[in-house]
Each structure stands twice: as C-alpha cells, then as structure tokens.
C-alpha cells in the first residue's frame, strides 16, 4: 500500500510540468497554431523564474516574470505565424534554439555559475502545502494515506495545474471564446465570415499558451528544483506534445496521458534493479526504456487515429 501511494505521489509530481505544457499546447493547437516551441518557452520561463527568485527572493514575482517572458516568446511565435503567415514549425524550432542558447549565455553573464542561477530557498520557492487535517487523517485506512500523501503535500502550482483541466474543458466547450477557438482551428474561413477576427482570436490562444508554459517553467525551477539549471526542461516540452496527440487534443484525456507518462517515469525510477518475484532482476535499461516502449505500443495499437485540428499549421489567408 505504501509503495502504491508513494508511486502515485511521485507520478503526480512528475506529471505537473507535462500537464501544464500539454494544456498550453492544447490552446494553441486547437486554434490552428502548431507549437513545437513549448520546450523553449518552458525553458525561458524556468530561467526567468530562477533569475527573478534569486534577485527578489519572492516566488510570486518570479512567477509573473516567467509568465511574462513565456508570453513574450509566444507573441513572437504569433507574430511570425499569424501576422506574417510564416511556417509554424520553423518559428517554433527557432524559439527553442533562442531559449536554449540565451538562457545559458545570460545566466553565465549574470551569475557566473555556468548558466545556473543561484540556489534559492524559503519564500523564493513554491514549497509543499500541507492541507488541513493531513496529519490527523494519516492513520485512517486507505483514504488516510491517499489524502495525506498524495492530495496534501503538493505545491500550489501542482494544484493549479490540475485545476486547469476542468477549467480548460469549461472554456473550450462551454464558453463562446472556446467555441470560436475550436472553430478557428477547424475552419477559419467560417469564423471570418461570421465577422470574427481570426488573427485576434489566434493571438489570444497563443497568449494562453504562453501563460501556461510560464507556469510549467516556474514549477520546474522553483518547485522541483531550487533554481535554473541549463537545459533543465530535458525534452519535457516534446513529451507534452506527444501527450497532446495521444489525448487527441482534448483536455481531460490530456491529463490522463500526462499522468500515464509520469507514472511510467516514476516506475522506471522506483523499480530500477529491484528483483520481481518469478521474473528476477529486471535490467535497469529495460526499466528506463519502458516509457518509450509503452508509448509506441499505445500509440500504434490502442488509441486509434489521432486527427489534428484541420486548419492546424496552415496560415489563414483571406480570399482576395
């Protein structure tokens, strides 16, 4: 029982940045703007969070800075792909490169620690939050450990990430903005005909993407770690994109996909070199490859065809 609880606890922690990045991608891609630059925006956000937290000592100011930088990069992507109708993949890749290079150079110039920002502590981080009654309920069978270990003791940003799932669902399927957002990703001409500005709608979508990637970066830098380290996103932006395809661009399946990836990651950490009854010792390499193997199997066999938003990747040109 303890092991299961600890595994799920680790799963939740590992999934949070994936989930935030995945939902970020969802807003953008649902509006027809492919965003391969999630990784770069997350990285820039993490760097901004680490830097500002080190300078001001306040996690909240750091969060605002991270969101600001990520939104700025998202607007660059928007400017290139919406206003100038450029290739969205090229623009996204460019953002990844800019973020990977500039964070190291600026970090080295400002802090001289090889692109790392100084370690921060206390108020400069988003620490774990103990929910009321967590200690008291710990001994209740089954529900006690689940509440006190898994639900309580996460960071504020983790709660925010999971709250964003129903919120995103509500925005997408129950608001006028969401309806138009989905429409502009499927058939922008129809949206235009209805007298709604396609560029403005898409700009708002990429701003949402920026905000969420800023949160994801802050979580990496100030919750999971205590500062920025170069290349700290380590491909999570791409895994989030895979999860998005996996989830067929829907918010609730996106959460499950991210939790699945997180769970596999947690398992690979936990069961390295552990001997299983009947099987014996499983090689470390197999455990580490497991997430990727399962991803291929699931993608190939179980989820069926993933159809992207029809207007995705295509710049909208008004008929002349």
């Amino acid at each position, binding site marked *: 029982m303890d092991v299961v609880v600890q595994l799920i606890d680790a799963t939740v922690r590992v999934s949070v940045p994936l989930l935030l990045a995945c939902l970020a991608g969802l807003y953008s891609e649902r509006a027809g703007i492919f965003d391969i630059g999630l990784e770069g925006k997350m990285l820039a956000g993490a760097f901004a969070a680490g830097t500002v937290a080190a300078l001001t000592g306040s996690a909240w100011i750091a969060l605002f800075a991270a969101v600001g930088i990520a939104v700025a990069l998202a607007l660059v992507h928007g400017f290139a792909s919406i206003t100038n109708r450029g290739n969205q993949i090229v623009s996204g890749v460019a953002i990844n490169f800019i973020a990977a290079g500039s964070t190291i150079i600026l970090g080295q110039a400002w802090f001289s620690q090889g692109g790392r920002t100084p370690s921060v502590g206390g108020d400069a981080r988003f620490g774990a939050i103990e929910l009321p009654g967590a200690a008291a309920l710990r001994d209740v069978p089954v529900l006690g450990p689940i509440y006190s270990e898994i639900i309580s003791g996460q960071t504020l940003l983790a709660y925010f990430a999971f709250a964003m799932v129903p919120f995103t669902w509500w925005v997408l399927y129950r608001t006028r903005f969401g309806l138009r957002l989905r429409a502009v990703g499927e058939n922008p001409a129809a949206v235009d005909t209805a007298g709604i500005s396609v560029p403005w709608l898409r700009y708002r979508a990429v701003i949402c993407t920026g905000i969420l990637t800023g949160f994801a970066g802050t979580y990496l830098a100030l919750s999971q770690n205590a500062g920025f380290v170069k290349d700290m996103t380590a491909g999570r932006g791409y895994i989030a994109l895979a999860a998005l395809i996996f989830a067929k661009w829907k918010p609730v399946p996106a959460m499950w996909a991210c939790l699945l990836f997180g769970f596999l990651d947690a398992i690979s950490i936990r069961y*390295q070199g552990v001997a299983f009854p009947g099987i014996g010792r499983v090689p470390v*390499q197999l455990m*580490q490859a497991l997430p990727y193997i399962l991803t291929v199997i699931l993608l190939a066999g179980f989820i069926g065809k993933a159809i992207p938003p029809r207007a995705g990747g295509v710049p909208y040109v008004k008929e002349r």
Partner: protein
Amino acid sequence: MKRFIFGLLAATVVAAPAFAADIEPALLFDLGGKFDKSFNEASYEGAEKFKKETGTSYREFEISNDAQREQALRKFAEDGNNPIVMAGFNWAATLEKIAPEFPDTKFTLIDAVVEAPNVRSVVFKEGEGSYLVGVLAGQASKSKKVGFVGGMDIPLIRKFACGYVGGAKAAGATEVIQNYTGDTPAAWNDPTKGGEIAKSQIDQGADVVYAAAGGTGVGVMQAAADAGKLGIGVDSNQNGLQPGKILTSMVKRVDVAVYNAFKDAADDKFTAGVNNLGLKEDGVAYAMDDNNKALVTPEMQAAVDKAKADIIAGTISVHDYMSDNACPY
C-alpha cells in the same frame, strides 16, 4: 602586408626555441560544463591555480555535444597547444585516434586509460574514497538504509557505488538502494530526475544519499535537504551547496591532476603512462569543513580515520569494480 606576415612568422619561429619552457597549455572539459560544481569545476580550479602561480594562461573549451570532441582536440593540437589535458573518460576513444597523429604533443587524460607514448592517463581509486564516505554514511544513518544515485550507468560509476556499499555495510548499514539516472550523457545534467530518484529512495527509508552524478547531483542534494535528510557530494567539495545538510563529499583531486600535468610540462618533467591515485597518494579524500563539522561526531571521525589508515596500510582492500565488473559487497 605579405611581408609583414612573413616577418611575424619568422619572428615566431626564431623566438620559439628561446622560450622552450614556455608552454601553451589547453584544457578540454566534458559534457556537464565547466561550472558543474563537480568534476569539470575541479579541473578548472587546477588550471586556474596553475595560471595564478605561473602567469601562463591556458586555452579551454567546453564541448556541447559528443560530435565536437574530435574536431576540438585536433584543432587544439594543430594550433600547437601543448600540453593538452582532457577531463573525462568520454575523451578516451577520440584521444586514441588523435594521439599518434601528434607525437610531440603531451596529452593528459583524466579518468580513463589510453596507452600511447605521449599520453599520461590519470585514474583515481574512487572505490577507496567512496568506501570512506560509505563508512560515514553508515554511521550517520538512523534507519541503517542509505542511498546511491549514479549518473550515467557505466562501470566507472559502479566503481563508486561498489566502494560506497562496502564502506556503508562495514559501518552497519543493512541496505544500500542504488539507482542510476540514465544511459546517455544527458544523465549528467538532469537535476529534476536526480531529485525524483532521491525522493524515491527517501520514501524507501534511506536517510543518507550519495550522488555520483555530476550536475544531476545538485538536484539530489536539494531533494535530500528538502526532506531533512543528508546528502553526500562528489568530485569537488560540495559541502557548501546545502550547508549543514551535506554529510561530506568524496573529493577526487582532479585539480591536482590538471595542475601537475601543466606544471610537469612547464618544468619539462612530463611523464607518460598510467597514474593511479588512491588514498595513499592523496588522490581521493573525504571533505571536512565548517559546513559539515557539526554532522560528523568524534566517533564517526575516529571510525573513518581508522578505515583510512587501514586502507593505506593494506589491511582493508577495497574491491575495484572495474577489475572484474562485479561487486562482492
């Protein structure tokens, strides 16, 4: 203009023999980067010490991917840099190829062995140093369970693990939980994953975690400190990363190796061959400073001093994992 350049070249040729002791040292770092607070940073410190003492500046290069190795090394050798020091075992394959092409260049490779008449290979008995920090860990642990987080899963890192297990078990630990961060060089630079591994080990009951994982170790130390447990640093003295939360660090005197390579070349005393540095040669040590003074009790100090004396005297022999790819502890 042409004449001017020729003049310059001629001047260089003439001037060169006059300053025979003048060397143009170069240092090549491994992935992980110069300021990884660990292995590469230790080599940087050695080079800086040499620069400060002799006033001779050196060239340096941080590779950002494996494909750059051969190009960087060949460029440095072609430019006439001599001696050239490479930090990290990953350079071995490249050096094997390049060393015969530049027979007059003095190469020093740290952490791996390349047999060539112009190569000095410096390797360390990490097992011995790890044994000592294992003794400290086993005594500091209340649960008698300790953890080990390795970087990339390679025999060199298993050598750290093996010595650590030996020391910890000798000091009364009942279980050593071992994990590795990954199978690619990226495993040296993933503090988030390192932190998760440390948390998982702490969940399983470990209360002292030793990281031999380069930059990944920063995350391990952070996670251990966050959970109120103890970390053990590696390569450089990392005690200051989380003051009061790091039990000790297994220091590998990479700085001395780099310094000696430069210095010997400058004094024309460079020798090729394998230097295997252990406790006896002061090649490895455990770090004590103001940050961890309160964590090490007199009894622990006595035990670790005894273990150290026994290893030097030969009454304890620490098994070298790389000799037979197995760990008997």
